[in-house]
């Protein structure tokens, strides 16, 4: 299994600050439902550019936490959106939802481990 969360790499992305990374993790958990809603809405509306954009945004966010599976799943949907043919989007959505659930759970654990 690929590493779900590479905390050391993620720390580098937050300029070495645990505090900042935890803050970003909290923000991700907060924003994630809305970003996922946009991805879902784009698929439902068969709107390829909107899917590309929404998946791109999710991918960028996931990358901060150096999580290969979630950002890869988002990237696949972004490519589907860019190609304009949404026939593979449902499979992509299933994969993405699973990975994002696991990521948010892992991030929530990290936040809860923090003292205070």
């Amino acid at each position, binding site marked *: 299994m690929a590493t779900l969360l590479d905390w050391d790499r993620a720390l*580098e*992305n937050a*300029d070495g600050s645990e505090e*900042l990374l935890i803050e970003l993790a909290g*923000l991700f958990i907060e*924003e994630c439902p809305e970003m996922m809603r946009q991805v879902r809405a784009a698929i439902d509306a068969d709107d390829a550019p909107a899917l590309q954009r929404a998946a791109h945004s999710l991918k960028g966010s996931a*990358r901060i936490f150096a999580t290969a599976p979630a950002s890869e799943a988002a990237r696949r949907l972004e490519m589907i959106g860019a190609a304009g043919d949404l026939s593979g989007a449902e499979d992509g959505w299933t994969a993405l939802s699973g990975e994002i659930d696991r990521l948010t759970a892992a991030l929530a654990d990290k936040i809860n481990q923090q003292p205070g």
Partner: protein
Amino acid sequence: MASQPLTVLLVEDNPLYMRLIQRLLRRAEHPTFDVVTVDTLAAALERLALGGVDVVLLDLMLPDSMALDTFYRVRAQSAATPIIVQSSLDDVSLASKAVEGGAQDYLLKDRINSASLLRSIHYAVERAHARGAEWHSAMFHLAQQQLLKAAYIAGLDDNIRQRLLFPERAQIAALPFKRDQGDQVETVFAYRVQHVLSMGPTKGGIRYHPDVDLGEVAALAMWMTWKCALANLPYGGAKGGVRVDPAALSRAELERLTRRYTSEFIDIIGPDRDVPAPDMGTDAQVMAWIMDTYSQHVGYSVPSVVTGKPIVLGGSLGRNEATGRGLVYLVEQACRHMGFQLDGATAVVQGFGNVGAHTATFLAEGGAKVVAVSDVGTALYNPKGLPIDKLKDHVREHRLLADCPHGEAISNRELLELDCDVLAPCALQNQITAANAGRLNCKILAEGANGPTTLEADEILKERGVFLLPDILANAGGVVVSYFEWVQGLQNLMWPLAEINERMRNILTDAMTRTLRRAEADGLDMRTAAMIEALARVGAANQLRGLFP
């Protein structure tokens, strides 16, 4: 820029990056930042219209605009404000296109840290300020954009990229010299720029021209670095210039000016430091005066302080015609690559100075039919082929091609668009632009001049399948034989002409083969491939030497 906070317009729709960048900037102490955040293009344009923004940090994928469109619309709103494009690693071509379009720098989102972020902003603002002053130059801008594009594609180390964007050493002198009318003293601006000091001595010509400025000299010095590195010569790039019209000076005035130039810059030139050569407006005689002045200063003859000297003072056989000869060697190789022979091909040469006239001569010797040539005021066309020797006789006698009877006069614009196998621009920079690149009718574009083609034109030519011999490769013959002259001088050993030409051909052929291999392996245009080939050498040298202290 010490205490005044810089206003950063952060255009970003991803809330995590927005927060990340805000936090990183807020922690900065020197300089400090006011961060204004917007998450749509419309809001960004609105904020820019109010003014007072020092730098824009731009995400290209926004809810109301995507990709390059975002960049061009922000740029159009506020052309003078530096823009730093943020991109992720999988949008390589996007960011490099933005850089071509004038973005000051790029940041990889996947690798943002406060040091690289702050430095990128700081330098982008500094560069914008510097451009507004004496560095302001379209040529320098082009040289920097070419470097950024190649650095981006090659993934060049950040530290090295920032070091290479400006020359390591640049000196300016206000240079006084006596006119022939006894009591009159003229003061002109003179420059010597050394771009990279870590490759060995620096090397580059001295240009006397009324349009010379620091930015132009810096661009030419940068191109010399790539040229030397691509040919594997042990030099960094340099260039010198004097803002003066040499045609308006007498021989005695030119001599006084040249000797004064030499003495102003004597501490930074020398056979182990920086070795000048002829360029536009200077020649072997000017090099002789520089050599004499330098030799008087140190007390013994130092022929290797310059190249392009007269033969009797230690000049090299073949140096005078080296750039044109080298260009034609490469054109022959390019023809073979394209599946035809130079013998019987048609050619057009823009420019009839040292490079243009020799290029036309060697093209004709190689069996090509040179159907058109031009100089500063005249373009001549003859579909049956021009008699190059007679044209040279005419120019020897009348200085210019004007009134030469051997062809039909056409415009410079028409000349560039003529149907031909080989087009060799050997005159000035900025000749092939987005405006005319679509109308060129050549198979091979061989750049005898420095910087004749803009980045936008590069893209058009690439799409149209024109084979490009980029300047840093195509006109490197001159510096290669200059290198031979320097080596011969240091050894006090003279080589025969055949050996010189053969060695030059080997060096150029090798450089072209490496460039072609890289272009084909990585799907790059020839200019970017040549730049990356050169950057790899400069980058490796810088890494190995480390940084003092």
